């Protein structure tokens, strides 16, 4: 059935079609891109009924030789860890594409890069060969560089190059680590499933060094303190839809790598690093929330809140328990949905007011009630209100980390309070209080904006009330993964 390849390469094929179209045919380009996003999403939904929830094994495996002399293969496959992220990617990309219909300049290139980006991201979550993984990993970098650098804000070039170099310097170390694994496996292989069973042959010292190589790449992507400073800048400068993808999907590559490779292949390195990881997680949570609290730019605030939320993921990972892992994966999905809608919504107000300064507004709830309601809901979801998606995943992260790290977890809980403080302040300054007369002419959300945001809102509520829709797919894999560590 090659379903995974279909999901992954539909966008790339569409990108090639876009490339061949004349750039004046903007409507056609948009339709082709949206159709590709929709088809890819539809294919990914086909995975759900066919996915076996009861096995931790890889499913939908595809395997072809690629470079036989080096034993490089094209291997794709998913399990309960990657399935939610694949669907998150296709879903968020589709909505981001809808949100991108407002792009006015250089449409052809924009959609081309966007579709290439989608292929790269999907490949990262599906690849089961380290060379393929690395190929997709790097494939996400170039489109992102152009998307920020061309369609971004005033300081776009600087933001783009900072993003590019920073993440590239991380991935170079990853390449090295991949080579190290290859040369130290017998027989030499890049096959991730084989490497996951090879760690007993490696000395702890070797595992630690290789772990560090991978960790640098993943930590920059997450972004984990202190490698997070590229994120606020990139977010502020990136166009709305790119911010959405950056926060919703790209950051997840870091945590995914941490779970799949750092934990799955290098348990000794992971164990050695664990005491550092928990500190980094708590710093991400508390420090990220504090930094967010100091912001006046809405977009930068949401960006720092991502640092805080990815801290919950790290906390769950550092718990090294099935509960924590499933919390981390669910939190990745929920953060993608919630922060995705937050970025889309910030974009909505920026398109109208051309400012994102929190104190430039006031009393907008009376003028734009639908927008105010959706934004408040997204904020409450982000601060972990029960009944909305973020609560259960945050709770599972804390629950998973608590038995091992009681004091750190207790400190982390303060992050929840701080998150509440800055989101409420934003709601207060923008929507409540006396009406700022400057914006009396502001219009409420239009159909395109609603089409990109409302699905996310619906999913936020649905997963809040019914988290089993996501959790059921993960449980078997998470139980299996937690078992690795205790062996």
């Amino acid at each position: 059935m090659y379903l995974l390849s279909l999901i992954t390469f539909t966008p790339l094929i569409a990108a090639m079609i876009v490339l061949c179209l004349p750039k004046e045919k903007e409507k056609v380009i948009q339709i082709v891109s949206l159709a590709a996003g929709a088809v890819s999403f539809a294919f990914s939904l086909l995975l759900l009924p066919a996915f076996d929830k009861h096995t931790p094994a890889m499913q939908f495996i595809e395997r072809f030789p690629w470079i036989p002399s080096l034993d490089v293969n094209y291997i794709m496959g998913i399990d309960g860890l990657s399935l939610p992220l694949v669907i998150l990617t296709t879903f968020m990309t589709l909505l981001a594409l809808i949100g991108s219909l407002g792009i006015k300049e250089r449409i052809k290139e924009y959609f081309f890069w966007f579709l290439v980006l989608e292929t790269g991201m999907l490949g990262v979550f599906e690849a089961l060969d380290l060379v393929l993984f690395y190929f997709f990993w790097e494939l996400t970098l170039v489109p992102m560089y152009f998307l920020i650098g061309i369609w971004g804000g005033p300081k776009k070039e600087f933001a783009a190059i900072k993003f590019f170099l920073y993440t590239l310097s991380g991935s170079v170390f990853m390449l090295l680590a991949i080579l190290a694994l290859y040369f130290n496996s017998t027989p030499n292989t890049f096959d991730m499933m084989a490497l996951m069973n090879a760690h007993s042959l490696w000395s702890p010292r070797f595992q630690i060094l290789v772990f560090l190589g991978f960790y640098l790449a993943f930590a920059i992507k997450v972004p984990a303190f202190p490698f997070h400073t590229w994120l606020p800048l990139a977010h502020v400068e990136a166009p709305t839809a790119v911010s959405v993808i950056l926060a919703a999907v790209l950051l997840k590559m870091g945590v995914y790598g941490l779970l799949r490779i750092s934990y799955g292949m290098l348990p000794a390195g992971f164990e050695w690093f664990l005491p550092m990881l928990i500190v980094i997680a708590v710093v991400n949570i508390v420090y990220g929330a504090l930094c967010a609290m100091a912001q006046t730019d809405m977009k930068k605030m949401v960006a720092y809140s991502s640092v805080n939320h990815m801290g919950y993921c790290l906390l769950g990972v550092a718990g090294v328990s099935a509960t924590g892992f499933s919390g981390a994966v669910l939190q990745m999905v929920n953060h993608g949905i919630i922060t995705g809608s937050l970025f889309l919504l910030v974009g909505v107000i920026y398109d109208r007011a051309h400012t994102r300064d929190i104190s430039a507004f006031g009393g907008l709830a009376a003028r734009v009630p639908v927008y105010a309601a959706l934004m408040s809901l997204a904020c409450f979801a982000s601060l972990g209100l029960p009944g909305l998606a973020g609560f259960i995943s945050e709770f599972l992260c804390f629950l998973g980390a608590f038995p091992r790290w009681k004091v750190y977890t207790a400190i982390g809980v303060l992050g929840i309070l701080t998150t509440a403080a800055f989101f409420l302040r934003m709601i207060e300054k923008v929507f409540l209080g006396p009406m700022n007369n400057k914006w009396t002419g502001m219009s409420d959300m239009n159909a395109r904006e609603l089409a990109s945001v409302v699905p996310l809102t619906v999913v936020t509520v649905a997963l809040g009330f019914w988290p089993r829709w996501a959790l059921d797919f993960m449980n078997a894999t998470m139980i299996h993964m937690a078992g690795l560590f205790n062996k």
Partner: protein
Amino acid sequence: MLEHVYLIPLIPLAASLLIIFLGSEGGHSRMPLLSILAMAWCLAQALGIFWQAACGHVHLPYQASWDWFSFPVDAGGKAFSYSMPIGVLIDGAAAVMLVVVTLVSSLVQIYSLSYMHGDPRFKRYYAFLSFFTASMLGLVVSNNLLVTFACWELVGVSSYLLIGFWFEKPGPVYASKKAFITTKLGDCGLYLALLFIFTKVGSFQITQIQDFVSRGYLAPMAATLIALGLLAGAVGKSAQWPLFIWLPDAMEGPTPVSALIHAATMVAAGIYLVAKCYFIYVASPLAMETVAWVGLITALLAATMAMVAYDIKRVLAFSTVSQLGFMMCALGVGGYTAGLFHLTTHAFFKALLFLGAGSVIHAVHSNDMRHMGGLSKKMPITFVTMFIGTYAIAGLWPSAGFYSKELILEKVYGHSPLMFAILLFAALLTAFYMFRLIFLTFLGSPRDTVKHHHADESPAVMTGPLLLLAFLSIVSGYLLERNHLFAHLVDYTFPEGMKPEGAHVNALFLNYGVSALVLGSIGLSWKLYGGQDFKLAESLKQKLSWLFNALEDRYGFDEIFLGLVSFSDKSARLAFWFDTAVVDQIFVDGWGLLTKIIAEISNLFDAMFIDRTVDGFGDLSVDVGSGLRSLISRGQVQEYLMYIAIAVSLFATLILSR
């Protein structure tokens, strides 16, 4: 009827969603009727359950569970899938709470038909009220502490939305945020307690936790920590010392909201939570004692603050805080039944007092009692009903307050005569400030003739609920006390050897002595505030200005809150400064710098050994501090990449030469 108890929270939830999405906006929307209809259904069902339980037709506790979601848990080195249930647990306390919540909700919603009529967001108001009631009822019926916590947060957010309902005004906005953050502070403790419980017990099911505790598996230390964490949440929600500061400000919301949320139901949730988890407290004498003292301090402090307030709603707010302190104290000394009994009777007379105050405010358009006076003739029904409420809260025979307060005092005396003395003093203050409110508002001659002239009795939609609540404030105590109905329904069986026993206070003294003291307190209140202009009170204020100032400043507890807020703002700014000035410099720009230095060294090697002139040699001294930025601005990306490659090769050597 009991088997369909899950409908009780679901029906108002459905109503609230329907109201949000259907019908037209505007001050004359008909959608509120839907909300009231839903409430009527719930009330009927709640009364039915209560009746069946009271007659012994059904056996309580009743429990039913459904699967909610499953997630993996780890226990004993193995991970397995755990199915989290969602369900209902109806014991006597829940059956009583259901009646209280649905009854007060129904009355408040009927009352609001007139009070909020014409408000442009009339429809939304009812959607929020329905949503609140749904979450509150969910909290009451839930058999699972995680679900309880979820509902707990949802009532918090409803409270936030309703306090800030008139969001154009700065006051309500500030108050709503303060309420949310302050309660959230307490919720952090509750959150940790939940983590602790699941780690120890492996379940959130209340009955399973109870089973676990009763078998003695929970170490006293763990029980204490869990109990204190739960208490932190209760202290926030029930506005106990030291987190009580949000409740007086919450009075910025519409008055019916104050009656429902901030007097009768939500603020009682903290008490209810402690009662629900009572078995954990019983396992920890230290936690019990803490509960008692927190309640006692709250009861006293809040009562003193109510003595000097002139805002009619603030007096009632302080009074609510103080009365909640009574309940908390009762629970702390082992008076499970007494605390919940007072919760029930208090819900009736405090809702009555708030709705009465709303009626007054509706008539005179002011909260300040100094602008009132002499309203008894203008608003006879409001006056009589509020007088009844005051009579009940003062605890005089035969009102409902008499029975519940007597029970609390008896329990507290048995625990510690010192606490009894303090609590009795607080009770006397209660009578003083509540009658002061009546005297200032209704008696004497009008101080503001214009306002007095325009004042009129409220319509029947508003006075009807007042009359019903007044009736309950009189008879509910007697009815529930008769044949020990309440004690049979709501009782906690202490484990062997844990039952708090102590001295018995002389019943005669409780019945007559306390009443005499209360009457004396009322007399003193009359002496000070009964006249036309309260000269005596004013001169007392001059003499004791330090005391009055301290009370009006709420002992400076607000300052502590503001201090915390400004501290967190300062740390936020410090964190952000650190992020841009230090972390970003070191880890992005410094990274560039490091690779550059490595490159310069290799350049140096080039120059020395390969004997080639290096053009960029001077760069080392010129440009060391500018790092990445300068690299980019000079377009030396390729050079930079080369530097990375050098760093990488160093790393490679390290790995491969292991």
